[in-house]
Each structure stands twice: as C-alpha cells, then as structure tokens.
C-alpha cells in the first residue's frame, strides 16, 4: 500500500510573519514544514511500521515555490521513503481549490506506480489555519474523508478514526482509499536522528511541473483564485499596557482595572 502525506511549507510560527502582495511571505530562512504536518508524517510512519516489512511505502508531497522543497526534505529526515515537490510558477497565488487540484493530480501520478490506500494531511496549516484543504482534496480525489482524527487504525481495508468535536466524540469508519487529517493529539512526532539526516541527504526529491501531472495552468494560480487579499496591515500593538508587581494588593489592582474598564 502507498501512503501519501501532504506537507506544507509555512513561515516559522516563532518568526515575524507577514504579507507581500497579498500572499503570505515565504522565504527559505524562516520557513519550515507546517508543525501539524509532523503529526501527519508520524501517523504515516507508524502505520507503515505496524505492517510487515515492505508492505507500505510513504510518499511526502508538497506544493509550493522553490523554497518549499525544505518541507519534503524535512519529511525525508523523519523517515519517509519518497519525496515529491510540485513546483511551477503558474501555481503561485492558488487558493485552496487550486492547491487541492494540484495535490490530487500529484497523488494520481503516484498511483501510476501502484494504488494509494491513504492520504494523510495535517488538520490545519498554522499559517492560514483554514483547515479546508483536507476536505477539498478528498473531494477532488473522490475518496472518503476522515478528518480531525485523534486516533487512527487501519485493518482489513477499513480505516477507523475517533474525532473530538466540541459537542460530541465520534467514531467514523470508511473503506480505503481514504483521506485522513490528523490533529496534534494523534501522536507525538519523532525527531530526526543523525542516521536519518545523513540518509535523507542521498534520497532524491522528484520535482514535478504542472505539465508533468497534467494540470491546466488556467485552473490554478492567482487568476483562478476565487479570493484575493486586497489589503493587509499589521495590527497596531496594544497601547497603554499596564503591569504591576504584586506586593500584597495585586488582586485589588486587578479588580479595580476591570471595574474602571466596565468589564466587571
């Protein structure tokens, strides 16, 4: 079985994130693999390791500009078998539907080597936090969607997940092939060790263009995007901030502050 993991290249959460010309600024310096995709990679690797040797292979795919290769490189260091980077100028500015179209075509390309049983994604990219891509990708691939999994088990060609929604905990099952998005509750991602980092250096990354995967340029990119960021400005810092040190009356000060602001 082939397991595909999608990994996104995003600005580091700890860095100063910003916008350039209506899209999220992404540079190699402070970019990284989306943190929640570590959980997706971990889920794929654990599944592979639970199966007999040679039964499963894990592919990591990223869609993005030249710098985005860092995301699949990271996945290789974590231990995935193959890395695919779909990179094409025409992709720039795609919305979630354009990105899903490209990812779906890349998954179909991998399927030419043999069937893909599972596509595993993170629950959200911590840059935009839309959480829409997993649903859009499942729809594009026309396969079952098991989203927000906090547990995942696969047996006899059926995937079972548990998901914790605010109002209910659900157990959901579907026959493979299926798309699963995992939360950060699903597992504890491993760290790359020295051996894996060295091994990853010699593993190739397959770079694909839109033409390679048969996607029409007109269907992706900024022109096809159904949304356009027309204004982006940094939020001004909070003004007149107060900080007191408790010397016996900190609680009283706190209460006074709330009362004066009309918040109590």
């Amino acid at each position, binding site marked *: 079985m082939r397991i595909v993991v999608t990994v996104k290249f995003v600005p580091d*959460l*700890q860095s100063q*994130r910003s*916008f350039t010309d209506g899209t999220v600024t992404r540079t190699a310096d402070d970019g990284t693999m989306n943190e929640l995709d570590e959980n997706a990679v971990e889920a794929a690797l654990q599944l592979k390791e639970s199966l007999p040797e040679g039964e499963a292979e894990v592919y990591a795919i990223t869609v993005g500009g030249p710098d985005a290769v860092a995301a699949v490189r990271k996945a290789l260091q974590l231990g995935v078998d193959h890395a695919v980077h779909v990179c094409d100028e025409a992709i720039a500015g795609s919305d*979630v*539907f354009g990105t899903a179209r490209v990812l779906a075509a890349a998954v179909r390309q991998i399927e030419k080597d043999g069937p893909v049983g599972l596509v595993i994604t993170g629950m*959200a990219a*911590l*840059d*935009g*936090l*839309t*959480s*829409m891509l997993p*649903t859009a990708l499942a*729809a594009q691939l026309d396969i*079952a*969607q098991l*989203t*927000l999994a906090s547990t995942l088990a696969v047996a006899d060609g059926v995937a*079972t997940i548990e998901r*914790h929604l*605010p*109002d*209910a*905990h*659900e*157990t*959901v*099952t*579907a*026959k493979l092939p299926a798309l699963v998005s995992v939360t*950060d*509750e699903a597992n504890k991602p491993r760290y790359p060790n020295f051996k894996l980092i060295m091994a990853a250096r010699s593993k190739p990354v397959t770079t694909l263009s839109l033409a390679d995967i048969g996607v029409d340029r007109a269907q992706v990119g900024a022109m096809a995007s*159904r*949304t*356009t*960021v*027309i*204004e*982006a*400005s*940094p*939020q001004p810092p*909070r003004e007149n*901030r*107060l*900080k*007191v*040190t*408790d010397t016996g*009356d*900190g*609680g*009283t000060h*706190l*209460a*006074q502050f709330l009362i004066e602001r009309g*918040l*109590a």
Partner: protein
Amino acid sequence: MTDTIVAVLVEHRNHEIAQPTFEALTLARSIGRPVAVWMGQEPPADAVAALGEFGAQEVRVLAIGERARHPKTASAALAAAAGDAALVLVVSTFLTKEIATHLAIATDAGVVVDAAGADMVDGRVEVRQTVFGATWNVRTRINADRAIVAVLPNTTKATPADTAAVAEVVDVVAALPDVRESIDAVVPVAREEGVPLSEAAVVVAGGRGTNGDYTLVRELADVLSGAVGASRDATDEGWISHEHMVGQTGVTVTPALYVACGISGAVHHRGGMQASGTIVAVNIDPDAPIFEIADFGVVGDLNDVLPQAIDALRAHRQG
C-alpha cells in the same frame, strides 16, 4: 438595503439556537435580506420566532436529522436551501468549514473562514479577518458570484431587527448524496452550565500555573459571568477536559475580556485568544510572553492575586 439574499445556517444544539447565529443574522441584515436555514429535526416554534426577531424572513427547514453530521450531506442540503443566496453565512466551526468547502466545490463559490466581518462592495463580498495570531488585519475580496463566509463568534454584536419579521417556515426537500463514511458512534459531550467557551463574552483561563486546581479560576469566571478556558498543558495533564483548550489547535475565542492565569503565552496559545478585546494576565514570571500582549498584567502568584480579586469583584457586585 438590497434584495441580495443572505442565507444563514443556524447553529443549534438540542433545539437551542447558539448566540453566534443571531450575530450572523445581524451581519446578514447589514448586507441584504436574511433567510435562516435550519438542519436536523424540525425547529420548535420559539426558535422560529427568535430567528424572525433577528430579521429572518424565512426559516428554510431541512428535516435530515443526524445526517446533518456528514459535511457532504449537509452541504448538499444547504445548496438546495440556499440556491438563491448570493452569500451564505455560517458560524465558523470545524464542521461548518468542511460544509463550506463542499458547498464551494458544488457551487463554484469563493470561501473565507474565520472572518471578523463582511460587507458588499461594488457587488462583491469583502471579508475582514485577523490572521497570524491576530497580528495582521486582512481584507479579502471574493471574486466569485457566490460567496460563503464562516464568521467567528463575538465579532458582530447581535441586535434584534427594528421591525421583527414573522418568519415563514418553508420545508425544503433535498436530494442527498451517498456518503462513504459511516459515523459508528456519537458520544455527546456533556455541556457545562452557562455560556459555551467559544461564545462567551468573558473567558478566564488557567494553565500549568494552576497546578491542577481550577477552583480559583472557576470562581473568577463565575463572578465575571464568564466561561473557563485552559492551555494545552492543562488539558494534556487531564486537569480539565479537552473542550476547554484555547489556542490554534483548540478553540479560537474573541471575548471582550480574556484573563490568563498561570499561562506562559506560547505562540500556539496566543493564536487562539490574541484577538480578544482586553487581555489580563496573572503570572509569577515577569518575563512570561503573555505580558507582551496583556493590557493589564499582575506579576504574582495566582494563589494570592485571584482570591483578593474575587473578593473585591464580589464586593463591587453587591455594592
């Protein structure tokens, strides 16, 4: 006011309408003519009346029961009920984002989720959002003829319509798609007394600094009529249930007041609360990052500070 039809998907639980639905109806009224879409069991009469009070002229009902839990099914139902709407508003939740995605694919609509507001400019829907843990303000135009916007709670103040409508109940029949997923078990999460966390105007949250004892946090929440939140470390420790977790992978909250007690203010946590109106922090460490975004910070032990604050606030309430 235009004739643009704005459909609002009603959030309800056990037939009780969630407050953000009224916020969405208020927003819908500022853009066009609101119609409410109700999915699940038939709505009770008082719910229909309440929707009318907030300006819904129709309540379009899809009696599809539990099948509404499947995003693809819910999307097909919503498409059938909102075919004439240029804009569909939903309350932003994990489930509605999935419904919105399916609906967009089925109708070629453009979508923006986690919105703080929307308006119509030159015939196009424009949406306001704060992103990157509320450090940037962004305005996005939806280029498609049909728009779907998922709005965050507490971003529009719910006000009844000047002239309440008597909402007409319209039954909608939708052809529902086959689904590949089967929901084998649903265990409802017991709802706590009071306002749900995501909708609360005041949130008092406790982190690792509580050491597992939420008594003071709960008391402060109680005296401020607020909801109780938590950091991931606290829910991971099992001190409080997962539904209380605020942050990028938990609940996003935008209350008028957020009080962080014994929470360091990690970037993941901030991402879910930084857009709050006023932020107050109590932390023993003067260098805790939470102080960078706190309008009012007390450097001190929460076990000293909170009891005193609670007493003073109680006295104020009674006084």
